[in-house]
């Protein structure tokens, strides 16, 4: 069988495959801008900051225990129903009687955040 002409078809195939490859790569680049913006929106930076500030504000050692408990329960409940995030603040831990550690936990299913805030 004389197949010296096969290389024409082969060249045709080579060109097609390289075009497909190029197209796949180029397709990804248009998504770059979109995924950057989505990543920024998805990370709950401001949610975590807001919860942290509210919890720290309410949990300072001079606040009444009743207030601390109320605010903590409010935040945990409202956060679960409105923001779909689990929040828990644990009792402060005293270290050497010189400072306190306030453990904070946040989890919205995608992002988890844990902190032990040191005060003073």
């Amino acid at each position, binding site marked *: 069988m004389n197949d010296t002409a096969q290389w024409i078809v082969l060249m*045709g195939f080579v060109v097609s495959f390289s075009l497909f490859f190029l197209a796949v790569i180029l397709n990804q680049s248009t998504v770059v*801008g979109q995924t950057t*913006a989505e990543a920024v929106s998805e990370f709950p930076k401001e*949610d975590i900051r807001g919860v942290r500030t*509210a919890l720290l504000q309410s949990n300072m050692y001079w606040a009444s225990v009743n207030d601390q408990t*109320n605010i903590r329960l*409010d935040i945990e409940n409202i956060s679960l*129903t409105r923001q779909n995030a689990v929040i828990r603040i644990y009792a402060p831990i005293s270290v050497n009687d010189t400072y306190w550690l306030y453990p904070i936990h946040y989890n919205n299913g995608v992002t988890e955040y844990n902190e032990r805030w040191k005060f003073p």
Partner: protein
Amino acid sequence: MVNAECGQLFTIEGIAAALIMLATVFIVVNTTSVYTPGDTHVNDMQLEVIGTDALKMLNTPVSMSGDGKSPLVRMIEFNDADAFNKSFSNILNNRTGADPDTIQFSADISYKSNCGATKNGVNTTHFTHSERARPKGGLFGGEHAVHVSQWIILDDYNTTTFKNVFPEQCGSNSAKRAALVEVYLWRD
């Protein structure tokens, strides 16, 4: 003598290769998507950043003299929707060089109910919305809106002490409580 059929093989092969390449390029050029600006969600992200910044700045006390409460907490404790409209709208739409922006908003407050049928559940009540939003509750569903929120701590839910905005709270609860201010923002 040249085999007459061998030559035809070249022609047909050439045509076949040409058709393959043309078909490929046709498919490729037609399927590569064109992203419109709206698809990239960049505008959404920008609006959300402006909204969270504005709400956070409104929830920052101006100075620690006086009672040290932020303007947002004071406005909600006294149910001052006009003041909220004015200052929030101002902060949202302020630009450095050009004319003000046209961002509209609708604000709700979520809180934990302490009496009645919904006791210990979370209620949401509408606070206010911007001037140009529709009269009934602000959001009518046709806007492309983003959602921002901010936690506040209030002195109490007692609607007789303040005139605050929580309709289902019973009086005589004068402990500090937390609430979530949620705002929907869209560009007009």
